[in-house]
């Protein structure tokens, strides 16, 4: 049997969901792999939803909203765009960024809806099952995915992504525009840092481990792991355990 991908779609109520309905009314045919979750606005799509979708076995996730400027809620899709970009950056870390898509489909674009879904389904088909999908998901990848979910749900990422538009496009608290380059520098490094920290936390959830062991396990330079430990310790998430030989162990609190 050929591979039938499981595709999860988040559709905004006012444009894309209506477009999908129009596709139905117009009997536009497209592959039956997509399962749709209706949300009021694409801006409602919490990054965690997408990661959760992959966690439970999706091979691809597509988010659809109104065209830029058409948002029923004025600017929700702008926010969706920023969040999606973050999701993409996170998934790139585990090579899964090509399994998500953000598309704008209006209420009148039934045929386009069909075409987008067809194309995306074919695209996912060509990629094959997601490492986190199918009946036998890759446990390491699942753990990494979980780490991403933790990272993206953490305060730091959400503060940054939530303010991005305001401070880079309108004005920040000083009445200036934050330079996009500066912002992205912080944002991009935050993505990597928070991902690594989440991985460390998950790994320490199993057992006490040393910096070196974590470094080998997570393929991160040990000096960076140590740096993360100082932050996680300051956040009250990990603490020093006993010292084995000359190697201190760390534990989760």
């Amino acid at each position, binding site marked *: 049997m050929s591979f039938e991908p499981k595709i999860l779609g988040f559709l905004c109520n006012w444009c894309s969901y209506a477009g999908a309905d129009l596709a139905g009314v117009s009997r536009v045919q497209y592959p039956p792999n997509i399962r749709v979750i209706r949300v009021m606005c694409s801006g409602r799509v919490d990054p965690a939803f997408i990661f959760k979708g992959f966690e439970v076995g999706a091979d691809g996730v597509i988010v659809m909203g109104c065209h830029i400027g058409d948002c029923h809620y004025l600017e929700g899709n702008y926010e969706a765009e920023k969040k999606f970009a973050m999701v993409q950056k996170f998934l790139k870390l585990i090579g899964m960024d090509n399994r998500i898509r953000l598309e704008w489909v209006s209420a009148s674009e039934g045929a386009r809806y069909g075409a987008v879904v067809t194309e995306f389904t074919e695209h996912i088909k060509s990629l094959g099952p997601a490492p986190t999908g199918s009946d036998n998901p890759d446990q390491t990848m699942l753990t990494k995915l979980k780490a991403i979910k933790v990272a993206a749900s953490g305060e730091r990422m959400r503060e940054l992504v939530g*303010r991005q538009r305001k*401070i880079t496009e309108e004005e920040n608290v000083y009445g200036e525009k934050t330079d996009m380059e500066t912002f992205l520098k912080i944002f991009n490094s935050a993505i990597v*840092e928070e991902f690594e920290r989440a991985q460390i936390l998950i790994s320490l959830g199993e057992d006490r481990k*040393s*910096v070196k062991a974590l470094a080998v396990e997570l393929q991160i330079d040990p*000096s960076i*792991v140590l740096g993360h430990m100082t932050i996680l310790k300051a956040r009250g998430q990990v603490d020093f355990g006993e010292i084995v030989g*000359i190697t*201190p162990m760390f534990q989760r609190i």
Partner: protein
Amino acid sequence: MEKVGAVMIVGAGIGGSQAALDLGDSGLKVFLIESSTSIGGVMAQLDKTFPTNDCAMCIVSPKLVETGRHQNIDLNINCEILKVSGQAGNFTVKVKKNSLYINPDKCTGCGVCGRNCPVEAIDLFNEGLAKYAATSVKYPQAVPLVYAINKDYCIGCGVCAGVCKAKAVEYDRKDEIIDINVGAIILAPGFDEYLPPEVNKYGFGKFKNVVTSIEFERILSASGPYAGRVLRPSDGDIPQKVAFLQCVGSRDYTGEGQPYCSSVCCMYTAKEAVIAHEHQHEVKPTIFSMDIRAYGKDFDKYIIRAQEEYGVRYIRSRISSIDEDHKTKDLILRYENEDEEVIEEVYNMVVLGVGLNPPRDAQHLADKFGIKLNPYGFAETDIFNPVQTTKPGIFACGAFSQPKDIPETVTQASAAAGCVDQILFSERGKLITEKTLPPEIFVAGQPPRIGVFICHCGINIGGYVDVPEVTRYAATLPNVVMSDRNLYTCSADTQGIIKEKIEEYHLNRVIVASCTPRTHEPLFQETIREAGLNRYLFQMANIRDQCSWVHMNQPEKATEKAKDLVRMAVNKARRIAPIDRIKLGVTKKAMVIGGGITGMVAALNFASQEIETHLVQNESKLGGFANHIYHTLEGGDVQAYLSNLIEKINSNKFIHVYLDAEIETINGYIGNFKTTVLHGPNKDRVEFEHGVVVVATGAKEYKPKEYLYGQNKNVILQSEFEKILNTNGAIKDKNTIVMIQCVGSRNDDHPYCSKMCCAEAIKNALLVKKLHPEKEIIILFRDIRTYGFKETYYRKAREAGVIFLRFDENYPPEVTVNGSSLKVDVKAKKVGNLLIPTDLLVLSAGIVAPHEENEELGKMLKVPLNDDNFFLEAHVKLRPVDFATEGVFVAGLAHCPKTIEDSISQANAAVSRACTILSKDEIEAEGKIASVDPSRCSGCGMCIDNCAYNAIELIEDRRFGTVAVINQALCKGCGACSGNCRCAAIDVAGFTSEQIYAMITGRL
């Protein structure tokens, strides 16, 4: 020109803070200007301090807190100097106060903003070993505890304003430019550590496990990134083999570093090695050094302990290169040992003992203030007064004029203050405004009416502890007549509420349950005092730092604990009573013991402030040790200076000089001494009163028994040699001159370094080479300790052809005499056994303390001596010229061997310290002090031994017989006496046994 009774101090490290406290205490208004956002400087970054291994934070933080809330000190942080005009007595300084973007008056320092800031920036306080938020405070105990936004990192997201319940974040806060009018200026900007250039032979910046000493200091610190565990940055393991490299960026003529010696690295490296081993016994330190310059008081003993007790290995070599093992990140060191073998060793971590550079903005400061810098970029100072810059009225202290350690910095800070005193003494108190307070309400005998105020501290307490519940609970406790809660009890409006409630409910005790009394008690005490209550009718329950913050995951239990803490505070409050601070009169006169340079400088300083001074000299003439010194190494004319001093002393009407004098008795205590002196050829008795004592009794030159001294006329001392060179120069026939260093120093009898002998030897050698270039001079040494800029003279001597040979302390040179010729047999490093025939042998004899005299005086003044019979100061680091006994100070060689300049600094410092007392008409003693119930005292005298301040003595009481009495002026209220009193006769006000029992008893 009108003099202004205010002083500006630039730089609020330990030096600036000390000077500010001295001047503030003596009645001058102080503007303390700091460029960073909190005070404390480098010392706050340190884990421990040598040579006592004192915890730096423990000793510095009370001082900083005191500086922060001193009513005469106006602390300005985040400032820049824009312009300076005027002259000594009246300067105007334009200062820019850079915006913190946080209102310091509203910020409670709770830290919620920093915890929520999404931007991670390099934590400079932790030397980049950790990260910090863009909204941050330098360190948790910072003074002032005010967060600041670092706009360089801030992206303006606004989270901090959102989460700040105190509404302290103000993004539109502007920079402020102010003009400050002062009479004198002290510059104390400290130093910047040397950082190796991007490409360097140590691999610093490239190899992760190569760190600087200041980074290592943070690694060691309990509050540092690794919580005091010694871990290496590459992988978090404990490094077993740690190499410390000395003289990184110091004594460096390659141009990469600085030519001078940074003075402190030998000691701090030894300390770091010791502490590292102490923290983690796995650590085996090795120190690579050229000379070990442990020249300060008790330094040599420390080095010996490091080697013997902590197994620190010393290797005399400079490392030529470092490579990294790419896999293990270990470091491969190559060096040549003293036997000229090239050795390769692997270490897990390398610590660079980096030198001290002038502060990066030194030139900027020099330009603004119109002072000159020396060739090394430090402030140029007067040859005899190391705190006097090239411009009158502007002084420098601490590492700004030359690298130095903490006690020297503190000494100079006081010395600079002492010099300011000389200019501005007449303006004392003119710019100080005393607060007028209402008369105290009489509450004695009334039943307690307790008011309890419980603080939410934004969400810091309220988020975890059920504050309304605690408030309700507090209202049910006995004698509590009102209980209220506030968002921030420390806010200005709540102070108003507290006052209103005191009046409304006729409260006579107030309890605040909030943060820590260490920072906030004075504020609330002030409030209740303003409402007419005695400030001791106050109690605090710490339900934040020691409750809500440390039990965040157990809100019910935290609430229960908060209730208990409030109940315990109520129980204590029911038993507290008003305490009056006693006041003592002050005799505004001084006594200086010792008529050497130190004593004379001190006396002259007092006299110039119109303070009557009694100068007691045991010899028949003034001058002391300096009588035998002609020049300093740097070329200062000592004899001229001395005669000038003596002339000034003799012509000053405020100074009474007693020569050939002997002190018969000293009675009394701080502010109220009475002394009798026998003086002159006829031993006339004179009795006088004075408020303070400065001990400047000096020391003696060691008279060697070794090396045939006294047996052979060609064996002489450095001082004798100096005299010959400076008088008749009769050394024509002496073609070879050998000098032996450390004679009578650094041995079992005198296990300390005499500090000046190396400089003396080089001074004389250079003089010989100048007069007779053809003469051969050989200096046999153990370590050449030409610290600071003196290093350049060491180099000059070598360039002039003076031969330096190092001998091992275990194989000292042997001197034999063969007829009229002397031969020195020495086992020199790198050269081997040598037999040097010499025409003249010059011994660099050490300095020794007059044992008996010091002991006698110590007993009279009730002050202690150290093992080497020098006088022991109150605190090695922070109170270098004070004695534990108040009102008595020490300066000069009496304290330990030191140079003339250092002695002069100490003299001025002692005067400054003394003036904090003499400037007042009466001194107010601490209220929370001990007292003896004579009816219970058995007169055993145990308490006397326990008192560190000599505040207790036994007297004969008419009714009770022999009993102990406590001198209220001297008691600090530690309670050590009470804790050991077998009859429970001693109690401590503010912490009475009854009060503590009430807290223990808990529920009633």
